[in-house]
């Protein structure tokens, strides 16, 4: 332990931090770290939903086997997985272009990621529509409620991510790579790549393991 940490802080005389744009203050790092903590908080919401899924699976017997087979369509979920992961890869390409300072590269990567995100949403949407048309709706029982909640909650994140990409494309075109634009692009990277991690949990623990309930 250094001498400074052993020294007792004197109220009114010890400088703990500088106000304003102090030298050494890392605006980008502070903001991305703050956003990362927010994402971990968001993940706790997922934890609550996965816990509810585990608990309500006890009531899965209220749903007929044919309905469960329709809900847990692993092949369709696998196609969603490929599209979402490709979108994540495209945004990764945008981040590599950011490193090189290529505005065109960032725009292309972001636009492709956004389009693939929309394709993912369309696929999930058509899957939900198919279930609803078969009379498989969240209101049937608690188990179906939590399954639909998990799927829709993740889809809402994809909607937010796609909108965010659109906003970033506009801000980048208007302002270029300013500090604000760059930290928002990094935060979007954290947000978008985190959705892939959550999708692994959804695909394995809901779609695949749901088939053996």
């Amino acid at each position, binding site marked *: 332990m250094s001498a400074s940490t052993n020294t007792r802080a004197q109220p009114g005389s010890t400088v703990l931090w500088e106000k304003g744009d102090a030298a050494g203050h890392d605006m980008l790092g502070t903001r991305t770290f703050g956003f990362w903590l927010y994402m971990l908080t968001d*993940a706790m919401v997922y934890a609550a939903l996965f*816990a*509810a899924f585990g608990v309500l699976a*006890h009531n899965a*017997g209220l749903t007929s086997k044919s309905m469960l087979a329709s809900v847990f369509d692993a092949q369709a979920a696998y196609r969603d997985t490929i599209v979402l992961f490709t979108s994540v890869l495209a945004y990764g390409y945008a981040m590599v272009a*950011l490193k090189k300072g290529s505005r065109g590269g960032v725009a292309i990567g972001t636009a492709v990621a956004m389009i693939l995100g929309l394709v993912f949403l369309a696929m999930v949407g058509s899957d939900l529509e198919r279930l609803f048309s078969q009379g498989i709706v969240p209101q049937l029982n608690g188990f179906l409620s939590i399954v639909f909640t998990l799927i829709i909650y993740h889809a809402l994140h994809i909607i937010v991510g796609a909108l965010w990409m659109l906003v970033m494309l506009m801000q980048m075109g208007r302002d270029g790579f300013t500090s604000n*634009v760059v930290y928002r692009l990094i935060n979007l990277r954290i947000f978008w790549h985190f959705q892939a991690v959550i999708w*692994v949990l959804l695909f394995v623990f809901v779609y695949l*393991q749901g088939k053996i309930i």
Partner: protein
Amino acid sequence: MTHAVENPLHHPEVHQASLPGYVASFVITIGIMTAALWLTEKGSLSAQSLVGWTSLLALIAILIQAYWLLHMNWSKAQVWHTVAMVLFIPLFVVMIGLTMWMFHGLYQRTAITMPSGMRTAPAMHAATGGVATTTKEAAKAA
């Protein structure tokens, strides 16, 4: 997280991006998800084994994504992100695990009359060794 730079493009977090890393993460995680799907569709594993193997595959996929996509590493730029993640994981697991464990105990102790065909959660099913997953199976066993 303690780097002051004039040009935002020189920031260490911008320089974490790596195309080989992103491509490797994409290829490996797609491969892992394919393997998990194949195990499930094949249908030759017991429920307990299937839950175990697919959970292991999910864990590997998440570790790969955490390293290459989320850049969880011990570099100066990322160390506090990694520390936050490491401290978060037990909370995530405990929250899900404890909730399921508590309700599993509740269902057993309160002996709620279960409708025909009622089952336990896949993970609990595996934890109990696949015994009496449905009321029908329980009646058959008796």
